[in-house]
């Protein structure tokens, strides 16, 4: 598993930040925004190009390649034969890809009348996947998924399909997105961004907080992993996707889309709601999202609610990276036996009927759901489990 986000440049650093309830929101510094620049965001600090080791590429490419590199090392893929390494598949999600560079291109066209096509070299959404492929010499199955904020989780689901259908034995999967002026202005134009930072499921929540980063996992069939003696950190036990078919931005208020995704994921895992110990909610902190998701959670779990938290304030909403980063958070929670805090929560919204984890809760966590709900009514849920040997009894 590999992560880069505002909390840090490694899984260990990020988890340490989560356990310490570290705040990392600040105004954006990688571009100027006259109207929205004061809004807090979760920005990755440091030289992304240098850290990634890529000779070129967009900021999103850098984030993707860096996280993929850490995941590659963590999974010990170097031990594969050269031909096996070349057959590794890649499925990444992205929404912004090279948009931050495209914004500079547009700035030059509009302001200076210059067409600097070099700025568009890495504009296409396939660029992060292709950059990762070049970095690791992988020429197997390759796809890029763009399901808005559900992209990371959808990419993991598509990667599972690639493995189950025999397209690949090993897939580098996840998502990456950089902060951009377009997304910051876009979400501000929808009056969706919180001036004080997101407070998911809080009574006084007033919007989301954007972030950037990448989350990457190495997926392979259990038999393949065991045959090469790999350390299996977790299982993607089930994936479920639905569409609200309701509105291009607003979630369906009754939460039925999110509920359907969780039910499908549980069904594909052959599990029931009672098997779930932790839910990493999408929980953006917008009034509508949290209300709909809370309804869905209550409908699914009734009065046997597992530990629930949204970790969005730790990382910001990293768009296509969110589903992958949060899936990794679920694994870390199960490995360490701690359900992470719902950072930013002061007073749970009584109307939601949901009491998220206020501060890291010790518990035995063997199965978790990670929810990702996006524009276009895209809902994706992953059921993740760890083996008996990996689950820590946090109590």
């Amino acid at each position, binding site marked *: 598993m590999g992560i880069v986000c505002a909390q840090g440049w490694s899984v260990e650093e990020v988890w340490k930040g989560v356990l310490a309830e570290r705040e990392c929101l600040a105004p954006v510094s990688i571009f100027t925004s006259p109207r929205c620049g004061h809004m807090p965001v979760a920005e990755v600090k440091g030289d992304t190009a240098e850290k990634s080791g890529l000779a070129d590429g967009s900021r999103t490419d850098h984030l993707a390649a860096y996280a993929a590199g850490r995941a590659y090392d963590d999974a010990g893929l170097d031990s594969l034969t050269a031909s096996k390494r070349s057959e590794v598949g890649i499925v990444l999600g992205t929404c912004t890809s090279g948009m931050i560079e495209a914004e500079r291109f547009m700035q030059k066209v509009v302001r200076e009348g210059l067409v600097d096509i070099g700025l568009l070299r890495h504009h296409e959404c396939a660029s992060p996947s292709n950059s990762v492929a070049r970095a690791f010499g992988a020429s197997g199955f390759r796809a890029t998924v763009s399901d808005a904020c559900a992209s990371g989780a959808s990419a993991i689901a598509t990667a599972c399909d690639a493995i189950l*259908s025999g397209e690949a034995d090993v897939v580098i999967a996840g998502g990456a997105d950089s902060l951009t002026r377009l997304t910051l202005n876009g979400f501000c134009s929808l009056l969706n961004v919180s001036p004080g930072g997101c407070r998911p499921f809080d009574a006084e929540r007033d919007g989301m907080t954007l972030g950037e980063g990448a989350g990457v996992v190495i997926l392979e069939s259990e038999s393949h992993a065991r045959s090469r003696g790999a350390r299996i950190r977790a299982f993607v036990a089930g994936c479920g996707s639905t569409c609200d078919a309701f509105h291009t931005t607003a979630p369906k208020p009754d939460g039925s889309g999110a509920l359907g995704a969780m039910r499908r994921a549980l069904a594909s895992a052959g599990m029931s709601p009672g098997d779930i110990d932790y839910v990493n909610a999408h929980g953006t902190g917008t009034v509508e999202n949290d209300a709909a998701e809370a309804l869905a959670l209550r409908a699914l779990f009734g009065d046997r609610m597992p530990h629930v938290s949204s970790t969005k304030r730790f990382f910001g909403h990293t768009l296509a990276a969110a589903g992958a980063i949060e899936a990794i958070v679920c694994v870390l929670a199960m490995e360490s036996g701690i359900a992470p805090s719902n950072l930013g929560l002061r007073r749970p919204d009584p109307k939601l009927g949901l009491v998220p984890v206020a501060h890291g809760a010790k518990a035995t966590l063997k199965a978790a759901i990670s929810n990702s709900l996006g524009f276009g009514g895209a809902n994706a849920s992953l059921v993740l489990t760890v083996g008996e040997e990996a689950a820590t009894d946090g109590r």
Partner: protein
Amino acid sequence: MGAERGSASVRVLGTGLVLGDTQPVMLEPPADIALKRGPAYVCATAPDLRAVTPGLVRRLGRSQRMMVAAAAQAIAATALEPKDMVSVAIGTGLGMVADTVDFLENMIRLDEREPRPAKFINSVHNSAAANVAIAFGFTGENRTIIHEGISFELALWQAIRSLQSGRSLFALVGGVDEVSPYIVNVGREKGFWRDACEKLKPMTRPRTRGTLPGEGAGALLVCSDRARIPAGSWPIISGVRARPLGVPGARRLDASAEVEFIGASAASAGRKLEDVDLFLFGANGDGAADRAYIKVARALEPYIRRDARIGTFKGACGEFHAAGAIGAALAAQAVRDGALPAQIDVVRGPQKGGRISTAVVYSLPQLAYHSVCTVAL
């Protein structure tokens, strides 16, 4: 997650096409933007959106209009129930370019003073797939694949996976891309496009440099063998593969390996290469790319019938990343009707006559990928 339950082949219940004008036109940039004009295939005629409520139509961007209209054609009168078992998988290479550009231009010109939220909403890559779902009430899986020239083919693969695993009974699969002055200008700077405003004739003039940008949408309504559908003889799609080429580029293309790649797809439909009536190539008139297709066509010669046709379709729509959707929809129409659609230009074999019951669609997008699928009765 469980093992496979269904087959990797799906029936085609309907097709939809929204294509540009049959001849390219000169596309002019806005007067105050420093872009050069250039030829492109453009959908000048508004797509037929009578199947969709006016309230939705008013909110749709350009690509979304094309995609929803193509989907409406593909669905036609087919009753699709239950709606949560209908998935949507859309491939788009560049996404919603016009709305994204509008939002950015406005943001930069006005220093963010008057943002245009509707443009931002429509700029999101999965908005075409979302609007298909909204227009027809499909609450099943909804996925957008955006991976250069294999975007549609991967979407088709994804839809088949959804049907095969039992997650869906029906799937609306589509591909859409739109042209804009930016695409024309940037593509010309990169040497992708030619200057001449004339219809493309792929695989006939291999010394010509560049192709022409285009736009359009193609849709296929497909179903698994578990769906209850009216009795009939439906084209079946199988053998869908889309991958990076091990070694990109035309010169080092291993034509015999490509013949095997195509043959494996036909074999998935229980056909040999000699059974195939139509090979529909994604050639686009650019000499370098066309030479690669010609190399593959020559390598195919020993294995195919004398009356087998090799045809191309980009003379009808120009080049765009998701154009594979047009090829797949035309191949399905050809097999369904037994006859060659007018949009296909034949470069080998008889121009007319002869029943088409097996077609293979094959592409070498950007000479960096290869893709194939077989459509057969």
